[in-house]
């Protein structure tokens, strides 16, 4: 087994545990490179069929390429796709800085979707290497009824034994690719021929390393026009992956505040 085989096997194990131990699951599909890998892994875990809905919490502000991708592959992969809208900007915490506030709409949209569908488990494609507070996550991460994350009181989790009993009315976040890196995602995408959105590849000296809302996500300087070149670029770069995400850089704790409140 090589490194990618190990990552894959562990993710499949986590997905199957979630399916075995929770009643009403959904997989959050943000259309980006990570959640595409996650859907691929789910199809592997369940032999071609994703046995729970794919939920797209839609801010309405994604790139056109992302919507095209969703509509095409939602059908081709035979997903039970549920698109849920987000409430307007004036419904979120006004003390957050502007980009974070914009992103917080997604948290609110997520909460509404949770109430509407009664999901007790949300599978999300976050990775530890993306961001320092994500590095502290559990694989099965309990959320309070209001969606909040209590980082001071995370349950113990060891030897692939996960806490899978959310308190009444609350839910669990399940993170099947927490242990992957950005380079792992690309190497696996290439190995498995997983489709990607072309915005990740360089055009006119720029490309997106991370895709969010169109108004608060910016491309980085790059000449990488295929996955091999992306991998070579990542091997040498010291630019953090989320450098193009405005919401991370507004204040020291903007991202932490978002995550504690329930952001992914």
């Amino acid at each position, binding site marked *: *087994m*090589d*490194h*990618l085989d*190990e990552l894959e*096997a562990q993710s*499949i*194990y986590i997905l*199957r*545990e979630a399916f*075995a131990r929770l009643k009403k699951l959904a997989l959050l599909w943000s259309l980006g490179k990570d959640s595409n890998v996650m859907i691929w892994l789910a*199809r*592997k*875990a369940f*032999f*071609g069929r994703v*046995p729970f809905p794919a939920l797209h919490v839609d801010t309405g502000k994604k790139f056109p390429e992302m919507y*095209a*991708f969703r509509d095409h592959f939602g059908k081709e992969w035979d997903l039970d796709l549920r698109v849920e809208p987000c409430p307007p900007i004036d419904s979120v915490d006004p003390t957050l800085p502007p980009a974070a506030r914009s992103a917080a709409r997604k948290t609110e949209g997520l909460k509404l979707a949770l109430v509407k569908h009664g999901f007790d488990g949300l599978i999300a494609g976050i990775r*530890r*290497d993306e961001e*320092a*507070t994500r*590095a*502290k996550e*559990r694989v099965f991460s309990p959320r309070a009824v209001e969606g909040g994350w209590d*980082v*001071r009181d*995370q*349950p*113990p989790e*060891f*030897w692939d*034994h996960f*806490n899978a*009993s959310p308190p009444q009315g609350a839910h669990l976040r399940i993170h099947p690719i927490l242990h992957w890196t950005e*380079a*792992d995602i690309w*190497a696996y*995408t*290439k190995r498995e*021929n*997983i*489709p*990607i*959105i*072309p915005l990740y*590849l360089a055009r006119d000296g720029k490309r997106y390393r991370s895709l969010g809302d169109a108004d608060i996500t910016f491309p980085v300087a790059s000449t990488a026009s*295929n*996955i091999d070149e992306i*991998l*070579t670029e*990542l*091997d040498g770069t*010291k*630019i*953090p992956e989320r450098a193009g995400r405005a919401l991370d850089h507004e204040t*020291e*704790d903007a991202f*932490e505040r978002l995550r504690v409140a329930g952001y992914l």
Partner: protein
Amino acid sequence: MNMILPTASISATPNGTTRPQVRIVIVGHVDHGKSTLVGRLLHETGSLPDGKLEMLKAVSARRGMPFEWSFLLDALQTERDQGITIDTTQIRFRTRSRDVVLIDAPGHAEFLRNMITGASQADGAVLIIDALEGVRDQTRRHGYLLHLLGVKQVAVVVNKMDRVDFSAIRFKEISDEISAHLIGLGVTPSAVIPISARDGDGVAEHTPRIGWYSGPSVVEALDALEPARPLAQLPLRLPAQAIYKFDDRRIIAGRIESGSLKAGDEIVIMPAGKIARIKTVESWPVTPVDGPQTAGRSVGITLDRELFIERGDIIGHPGQSPRDTRRIRARIFWLHDKPLTKGEQILIRLGTRESRATVVAIEKAIDPGALSNEENAAIARNHVGEIDISLAQPVATDPYTENPRTGRLVIEVNGRIAGGGLVLSVDAGRPAVPVDIVPVESALRPDERSARYRHNGAVIWLTGLPGSGKSTLARALERRLFGNGGSPILLDGDTLRAGLNGDLGFSPQDRAENIRRLAEVATHLARNGHIAIVAAVSPSAADRAAARRIADSAFREIYVATPAEVCETRDPKGHYAKARSGALQGFTGIANDYQPPTGNELTIDTSNRSVADATDEIERMLARTGIVFDELTDLAANI
């Protein structure tokens, strides 16, 4: 379509994903400098992203503090404000020969559960000690827990050597003390290294200030740690995670914890000891796959015969299977606020199996910080101990020394992991060698039977209070199905208690066993094309759920929901009268322990409708759910 589908013609991955990866946990007493060492390691190996150093300088300046490396990992505001690591975190860097995943674990006693969460995933550990303070309780506790978690490779660093003027004598004192402690636990430190994490001495290079030290630097010591040993050489252990029937395949899914398997292998399913052969190894997008599948892989297999398998069963090879037992001795650590006491009811998880259990005895209770034996009445929070557990159902397991993957367990309290540990020994309640059960398959195919009977096999489970009309309906249904040329068989709960289940009483355990046997017999009949009609009070929802798992897709549950007062006025067997007079203990109708079903296929109240009418409705449900075939009359009408 503006979409990109990468082609397979691209050359091999240029990044180093094939480099060996080791996972290292950094543990030690609070304030002994773990986070600082991690920050320094990242800096020295050139692993910090652009702008991070400047960001940390700015964060430190804003708080009016000297530069603080630990802010790199202590990403949370609370952590920065209080100067402690609350939760474990992971970060990566590279040495010359390998990729290292560093797991930074909090030292504060309050957060011991997080330290264990981090350390349980590690191949090796760095134990850090403050040169001035020396070995502390938490140092010893962490050493003990590393040993308990099975982390055998430990490098010790003696930090803050600048605070003891780089004294070789002070270093030797600490080195001797911690080495003796670890060796006493069965762990030999791979190196003991004097360093100053803040200034960089001994981290990546030897500086003149520790000129008297000739051993490896921290980076060199990490370079020497070995990745986890492959488990492929041990006997096969495949704990079943689930059984999937998304199409006509019946796939047993799970991760191979040790050993390997391939199509054609004869296997044994524990704890029941049933034997079968692997028909295929299923996969996606290409299936089936050839060649052996080894430890670590998440696989799916199909078998050459239909056996009842459920989540938690462990598949092994005959002659090398795990033991089945209802009694385990374990060495555990306890993380819950409330001490673990003798007699306590707990839930244990062993692989994918969960079982209720009782703590029969607490044989040892130790504070691993003070290393003192305590009264054996209870294991306190953050302490360790040895316990004897009795399980409510048989499980398959191995002693930890024989298989580290299947020989470990966790304990859950109120849905949350509260402790965990290693299986020291198993007391096999039945022979450890599996019984070689080879079910003989019927000579007839299911479609041959269903063509004759005009129905598929099924288990019709009638549940409800005594006197609700279960037996009456069951008999009417039996007559009706037989009249239509079918093959119904009545399994009345009371009738079977006279023979097959004559050894069982009415305790919850015996009632559960009664239902299990009813379900097994009924399922056997259903698999052979008959419609088994079970009429049994079966008051426990959990027992009925177990019956449904056994009969699987053949199960149809009918709740005979006649009101209790109507049932009592009927009292066909005189039970209500006896119960009222006190002559019948534990009678369900009076004791009111009946748990009505949810998710049943049909509900019938016999107080307001005729038997024929109710039977019609059952028949319609059976047609609707694919048991009884629709009549041909529709076809005839079209001719």
